[in-house]
């Protein structure tokens, strides 16, 4: 278990299935993600079983986010790790909407970035955020991410093209 201030990060478990399926089919959640299609619980189960049956490793660290009371509220993961460049991409979802805007996401970000730098020895963590996701953008800033640019019209959703903002945090500028 990786301990943050408000949350802990732990390996995914099959018991997370019902919540993950609910979150990934909640349009209020997925409108901020690259998820587009509805996902059956069978498909979600197949994905989770594969994830939970393999040891977490450098290639694809995936954590469930739990509050200190052990309520599972979302997931955070690192992917597209390039060892030569010592960089990766970050994805996060707070699926339990009652826990939005209370600092849990920011704390989960800080915790996984610490893991990326201090355990995985990475140099750069990057993420994409849709330009209309002001809440996430603010959380990323609070967690130390810097805006690097804006990919124009990179994402189509809700009948229109939207910009995607690229943000990153580098090891040499990161404040634990």
């Amino acid at each position, binding site marked *: 278990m990786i301990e943050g201030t408000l949350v802990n990060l732990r390996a995914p478990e099959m018991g997370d299935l019902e919540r993950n399926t609910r979150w990934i089919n909640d349009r209020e959640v997925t409108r901020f993600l690259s998820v*587009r299609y509805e996902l059956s619980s069978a498909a979600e189960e197949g994905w989770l079983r594969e994830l939970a049956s393999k040891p977490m490793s450098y290639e694809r660290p995936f954590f469930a986010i739990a509050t200190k009371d052990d309520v599972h509220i979302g997931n955070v993961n690192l992917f597209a790790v390039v060892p*030569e*460049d*010592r*960089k990766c991409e970050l994805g996060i979802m707070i699926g339990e909407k009652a826990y939005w805007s209370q600092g849990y996401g920011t704390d989960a970000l800080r915790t996984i970035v610490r893991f990326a730098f201090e355990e995985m020895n990475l*140099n*750069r963590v*990057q993420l994409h955020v849709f330009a209309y996701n002001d809440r996430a953008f603010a959380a990323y800033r609070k967690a130390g991410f810097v805006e*690097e*640019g*804006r*990919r*124009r*019209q*990179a*994402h*189509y959703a809700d009948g229109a*093209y939207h910009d995607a903002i*690229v943000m*990153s945090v*580098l090891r040499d500028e990161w404040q634990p």
Partner: protein
Amino acid sequence: MIEGTLVNLRAPETGDLERNTRWYNDRDVTRFLSVRYEISSTEKGWLRDLPSKPMSYDEVFFAIDTKDGVHIGNVNLSGVVPEDRACTLGITIGEKAYWSRGYGTDAVRTVLRFAFDEMNLNRVQLGVLAYNHRAYAAYKRAGFVEEVRQRQARYAHGAYHDSIVMSVLREEWQP
């Protein structure tokens, strides 16, 4: 065959293998690419597989020929997302004698026209390493706009280098 002004774009052929192997093992060429390791002409992999896969929406790969039929490089579109109508462009001019003479710019313009006018895409993106000034200038000439500077995104030659994301949108593109 897709006709440009200085070049034509055609499907890859088995006969391209010797040149491709030479180019993708030439450090003068690959220092500007994401290729890092040496490639054998006999290894199973993308170089050998190229001519056997039908070109399609999901993976567009053209050999670049001069109007005299000299194969000088390759240009491809990958990572196509149909819902976003977006893709990523990659290009190599492997024959160094053809650098800085407009062939690359013309190949980029020609594949852009294909992306917009045939594939009906809305956005074509590319990544260019910050020290690749020649390519950056060619991309600007072909209509690309700088969008993102990914700091320290690429490690090579003993140091971290920035990588620039550029794109051209259908609505701003001038054929």
